[in-house]
């Protein structure tokens, strides 16, 4: 155990201080920051833009007050709300009609003031789907609150009601008309997060797999391996190596999670600073997704890095290394090619089967988790399959590694490899 720890420590320290690691670690936060800034700038010339709204007033006589107060509450920083129509006591058909208009972009938003609004038993609903309309959420909430408080003061304020009830603020619920409201389907944000999560996994698996391979090759080509295995069992050395490269990857993940998290958390203030009033892409990373990302990264990483280590052990030159790592990289690429199947329908039979297939599951299951969390049993089953495969793969890899690290000649044929597996 002590020796494995020594290996882990040495590899970790030498690796973390390389330029490649530092640059790679900084790249993602920098790219995210760039994307964020670009999207802030592209989020539309906010001022000067108008948002056409229809108010459906089920309470009666409240629509006008909201309209006036809305005009007072919006500043130059906001898109200008234009209330094109106020319908008092709308029918169900009318509501459906206007919602369809929002969905088809003929209208920017529908504000519904339901019956229970005055008593605080229901909240107002704002149906909208575009960023610039969403930017009005704050002003709308204030406008509705102003209007109902004013009404309560006028009509009932002098009765012996507690002031608390009078000043109870309105709540406005945001509704996206393009998605089915009952069954929450994958929306654009989930898509983006799923693809980003998939890509991060895909890239880190390849990068850290190759990293393990090169680490094995370095010990072989410098002949350091001779001294090492005279002090430590090859299996311990392999274990230490895989653990340390994994720890380096997790360090990178941690830095990424913290920096990108901070970035998005501070996005609003950044936006206000660079371009007041600009809207901010509402990406929120759920912590659960991060947990799954780490779990599936580890599942994939142990599986693939053991294979990459074996590949590193059987080769002696860079050219042989390129050939040997090809099938492994293709396997990872395969998951990447299957992104579409999952993105199209994460719950189709094909998606479910693929996301549980060993070698594919780490990336594809993460994709499903990011889009719409699948039943727990599927996640657990995928992990169980993956771990079983990994144990088997590590046993084979360790045998190849043990023989390969001391062979400096030509790359062995498949037949020779099979013989290596039998060497004691």
């Amino acid at each position, binding site marked *: 155990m002590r020796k494995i720890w020594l290996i882990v420590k040495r590899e970790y320290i030498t690796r973390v201080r390389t330029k490649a690691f530092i640059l790679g670690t900084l790249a993602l936060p920098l790219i995210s920051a760039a994307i964020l800034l670009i999207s802030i700038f592209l989020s539309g010339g906010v001022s000067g833009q108008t948002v056409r709204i229809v108010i459906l007033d089920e309470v009666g006589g409240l629509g006008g007050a909201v309209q006036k107060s809305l005009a007072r509450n919006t500043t130059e920083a906001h898109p200008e709300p234009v209330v094109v129509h106020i319908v008092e006591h709308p029918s169900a058909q009318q509501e459906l009609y206007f919602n369809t208009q929002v969905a088809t972009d003929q209208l920017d938003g529908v504000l519904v003031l339901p019956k229970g609004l005055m008593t605080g038993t229901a909240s107002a609903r704002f149906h909208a789907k575009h960023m610039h309309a969403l930017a009005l959420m704050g002003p709308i909430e204030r406008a509705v609150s102003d209007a109902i408080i004013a009404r309560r003061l006028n009509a009932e304020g002098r009765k012996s009601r507690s002031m608390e009830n009078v000043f109870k603020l309105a709540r406005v619920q945001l509704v996206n008309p393009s998605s089915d409201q009952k069954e929450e389907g994958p929306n654009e944000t989930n898509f983006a997060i799923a693809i980003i999560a998939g890509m991060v996994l895909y890239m880190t698996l390849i990068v850290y797999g190759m990293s393990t391979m090169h680490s094995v090759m370095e010990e072989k080509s410098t002949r350091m391996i001779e*001294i090492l295995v005279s002090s430590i069992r090859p299996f311990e050395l392999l274990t230490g190596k895989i653990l340390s490269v994994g720890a380096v990857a997790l360090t990178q993940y941690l830095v990424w999670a913290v920096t990108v998290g901070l970035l998005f958390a501070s996005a609003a203030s950044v936006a206000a600073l660079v371009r007041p009033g600009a809207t901010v892409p509402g990406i929120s990373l759920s912590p659960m997704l991060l947990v799954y990302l780490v779990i599936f990264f580890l599942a994939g990483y142990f599986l693939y890095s053991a294979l990459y280590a074996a590949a590193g052990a059987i080769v002696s030159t860079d050219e042989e290394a390129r050939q040997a790592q090809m099938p492994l990289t293709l396997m990872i690429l395969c998951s990447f090619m299957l992104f579409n199947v999952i993105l199209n329908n994460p719950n189709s039979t094909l998606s479910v089967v693929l996301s549980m297939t060993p070698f594919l599951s780490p990336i594809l299951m993460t994709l499903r988790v990011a889009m719409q969390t699948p039943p727990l049993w599927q996640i657990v089953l995928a992990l169980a399959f993956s771990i079983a495969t990994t144990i088997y793969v590590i046993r084979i890899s360790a045998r190849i590694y043990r023989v390969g690290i001391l062979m400096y000649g030509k790359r062995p044929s498949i037949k020779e490899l099979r013989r290596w597996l039998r060497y004691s």
Partner: protein
Amino acid sequence: MDAVSLEKVTKRYDSFDAVSSLSMEIKEGAVFGLLGPNGAGKTTTLRMIVRILIPDEGSVRVLGQPLSERTQELIGYLPEERGLYRHMRLLEILRFLGALKGLPEAEAERRARLWLERLGLSDRMNDEVHNLSRGMQQKVQFIAAVIHRPPLVILDEPFTGLDPVNAAVIKDVMLELRKQGATIILSTHRMEQVEQMCDSICLMNKGQKLLAGDLKVIKRSYGNNTVRMEFAGDPVFLQLPGIIERTTSYGEMVDITLRPGGDAQQILKSAVERGVQVRRFELIEPPLNDIFIQKISERHA
């Protein structure tokens, strides 16, 4: 107790036996020379002693114990194929390797400083390995082999690539280790080093033992059948087929192997007759080199 004992050890590869049924004992405190032509199985044998390779048959014991992690820590090993991590600092790498051999890290670092000082590398201890010359790297590797004061030191071709000054420094350290009671196994092609340093030897060829034992005893058994001569003049006088088996020329100097019963005086006479100036004429034990060549070619014949 023997420092190392091998009993009928065999290591098999696909097409050949690298080592076949090899038995030998190495006495504690000795400097032992493992000799043989390329491909004789020397490195395979050493690798089995340090437990890099596991024998297919037979058993190996180090200081009376069967091989284990514990015996690995009793051995210091300088492999023939050598190298170090390119991007580590000298002090770091020695601390790491010392710790792998069971030293606490602080102690490994303390000793590494002392050794670097002694071998003239203290001003380089924070340099990365790839900035050092090969000779310097080799000295670092040597330190790595002895830093944990192992009772058994195995050195595979320790002097190749070293200049005479550094070779002498390493030799001094080896003799000092021996004085402290360590056993040293030396594998080399350089016979004069073996003659200078080794107490006993084992000559291997094709995975088998050809000759083993105390160096002096071996040489004596070959008798004084060699004449070492230095002369000026035409070497034609050496064409005495009835007396001389063969000659090995070293430029100025020549070693002459006599046929059994050949009289050395005849050579001297022949030289005088032809007017050759003799500067040196000495009857000696055969050089190890001759024994080596003779033994190997006997097998081929």
